């Protein structure tokens, strides 16, 4: 397709080559409606995403709200120096990255597998009810999920520990041991989000050309083979796109979730950028410092997305930009 059109494109380019801006304006004028449709989204991004970025400037200040940006003293890289020299920095970075890696390796494939499995279920009523059931946890807030976990896992009368004790084992303090925090965190995410995340995959699967399946059947492919050679390659672009988006959200591990799980005893493995920004910035009022932490977090995310996008392109996929 792309190969057949360059003549038109290059013609246009030639016509407006010397007037870059004019070209765009004229183009815009002839597609007014299209641009009008973009407008709300454009305004949204300018107001809520780009405009607030100006606030990053306070990471170079000792910002005091009542002095405002104009009168707050400038301190250069003071907050960056503090961030990189504090012992907490290494902890924050490694905790964030480890949790992110776990989420990517363990959580990410689960919705795909789940979607493939649901796609194979032929009984419609059964399939719909399964779908509904696995969606439900998505609509519960983290507070509820963490509270339920707490009730189940508590050492003082929690069901799980009662069972362990009844079976002759010794009780495990799930809630206060650092080694249980990560498994608990990932399992909770799987429980809450796995079902919901299948939606996009299921949608992608429904548009796979049925002729492909028929052809595969003719060749004597088994169900598993069809899944592997037809369904999976067909939804590959979707998987890659979601993967890049996921990486973009790397450091958005979900503040609320982790904040609820944190306590004095598992902080060494649980404190992540989001929770640290909250305690330092909002609780202790160090607005400039927490902005610095946020800025750093954003930069790491940006680098990761660019890396993932390039990787996707190398693998012959489209990428997100």
């Amino acid at each position, binding site marked *: 397709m792309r190969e057949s059109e360059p003549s038109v494109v290059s013609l246009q380019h030639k016509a407006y080559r010397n007037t870059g801006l004019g070209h765009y304006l004229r183009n815009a004028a002839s597609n007014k409606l299209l641009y009008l449709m973009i407008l709300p989204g454009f305004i949204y991004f300018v107001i809520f995403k780009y405009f607030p970025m100006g606030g990053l400037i306070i990471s170079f200040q000792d910002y005091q*709200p*009542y002095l405002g940006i104009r009168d707050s003293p400038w301190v250069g890289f003071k907050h960056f120096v503090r961030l990189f020299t*504090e012992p907490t920095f290494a902890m924050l970075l490694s905790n964030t990255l480890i949790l992110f890696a776990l989420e990517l390796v363990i959580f990410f494939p689960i919705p795909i597998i789940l979607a493939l499995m649901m796609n194979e279920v032929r009984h419609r009523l059964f399939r719909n009810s399964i779908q509904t059931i696995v969606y439900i946890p998505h609509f519960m807030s983290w507070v509820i999920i963490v509270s339920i976990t707490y009730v189940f896992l508590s050492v003082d009368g929690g069901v799980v520990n009662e069972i362990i004790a009844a079976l002759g084992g010794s009780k495990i303090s799930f809630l206060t041991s650092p080694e249980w925090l990560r498994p608990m965190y990932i399992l909770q995410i799987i429980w809450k989000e796995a079902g919901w995340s299948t939606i996009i995959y299921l949608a992608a699967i429904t548009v796979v050309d049925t002729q492909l399946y028929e052809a595969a059947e003719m060749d004597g492919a088994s169900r598993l083979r069809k899944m592997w050679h037809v369904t999976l390659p067909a939804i590959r672009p979707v998987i890659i796109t979601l993967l890049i988006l996921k990486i973009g959200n790397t450091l958005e591990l979900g503040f609320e979730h982790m904040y609820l799980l944190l*306590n004095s*005893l598992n902080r060494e493995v649980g404190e992540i950028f989001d929770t640290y920004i909250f305690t330092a910035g*909002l*609780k202790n*009022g160090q*607005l400039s410092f927490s902005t610095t932490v946020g800025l750093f977090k954003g930069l790491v995310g940006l680098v990761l997305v660019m890396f993932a996008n390039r990787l996707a392109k190398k693998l012959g996929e489209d990428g997100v930009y």
Partner: protein
Amino acid sequence: MRYRTAKLLALTLSGALLLSACAGGSGDSGTNADGKTTISWLNIMHTASPPTDTVLNKIEEITDVDIQFSWIPDASKEERLNTSLASGSLADIVSLTILENSSVRNALKAGVFWEVGPYLDEFPNLKGISQDMRNSASIEGKLYGIPMQKQVARNGVILRKDWLDHVGLPVPKTTAELMEVAKAFTEQDPDGNGTNDTTGFIDRSDLVFGAFKTLGSYFGTPSGWAISEDGKVTPEFESEGYIQAMDYMKELYTNGYINQDFAVTAKKDQQEGFAQGKAGIYVGALFDSKGLFNLAQGVQDDMELVMVNDITSTGNENDRAIWSTSNGVGGLLAFPKSEVKDEAELKRILKFMDDLMSEEVFTLMTYGIKDVHYSLDENNGATIINTKLWEQEVQPFSSSRPNENGYAIVDADPLRIESTRLIEENTTFAVLNPVYSLESPTFSEQGSELQKIITDATYKYILGKMDRVGFQNAIDTWRKSGGDKIITEYEAAHRAVLNNK
């Protein structure tokens, strides 16, 4: 056609903008439709829900003011106060209960709030605020609000008297005896239900208002900081008492004499656990006894409580000590200059504060309306007659009282009388925080971050996941990350105060 659509869109958008602009305009203090002064108040809520209107209407009637409350739940006070300060969305009165928080302190020092020191003596009730209280609540010698006067030291130990009788032990006077009681409560089936389902202590994830700090006092730990004769400042966790208290807690934990998940237990769960008879020793504010007793009604009807405030580790009466809750200053009721525009308005609000301290309003905020919430006997003793109603309509106001001490009407409830007496007695043995009114910029800025290092290490030590060496390392980290600087700053501030005298 297209042009018209665009115009319509533009109109709608600007309309929306206009609307939102209007919404931002209200909230100023002024007078309402009936000519009453409207005063808005950003207040802290310690109960589950805000009070209903009954008592509020009465207070408004007496003070001739229309009060507009915005309630902040106590659990989220730090972030809410900070965001309010940062965004400038304040009220005429702001309850600042976290004076040690860096942004609150900075705001006070930056002059966001009126300095009220010079005005206090113009008002009869405000005049009664003692010089000591004024000094304690001042920052760099200036008083930026009405200090909330609390009891100086309110903590102690609450025990199940019926369980003590059941296991045949006396009320403990030493920490060793207390350990014995905890052991007996855990192992000797004090509730006599035939199953081994009780523990001695029930505690919550709070090293300050939970058991730990009070136990620390019994071992002679200073309150927050210690200043020696020659002006050396040391933090409490470098004292011998602190280590002993950790060891004590560790013994409780290892032997199962305390709820095993205390490090993640919320206050509500702790109190409910106690009320349900899961444990028999509660360490906290002595006036909690009444609340625990109420909670237990219908669940543990046999519950009898005894309060103790004279436990020591040595058994020697002279060693009695109990840490003081912010030296009796519960915070400041402060008035931002952005809302309270001029002196006349400030005086109007101070008048309102003065009215709040009157016997009449204090009674309303404490006991409620006579014969609706409480009855009065011939000795000015108040008895709550409708606990449910009192909890809904009156209790939420208790944290709004500028003063809690020295009123004629007293609670006639035996538990209340006893806790009031013991808390009063505590004053004599109270250990004050010596650096409370000293300035340390590093502490203001990083103090709470640094404290986390120590808090985490303390928990780990108690749970046996860290030894003395590990704890010492944590202290070293604390010192290196800013602790040393804090100490130097406090020492300098202390010297400055001495030189001024």
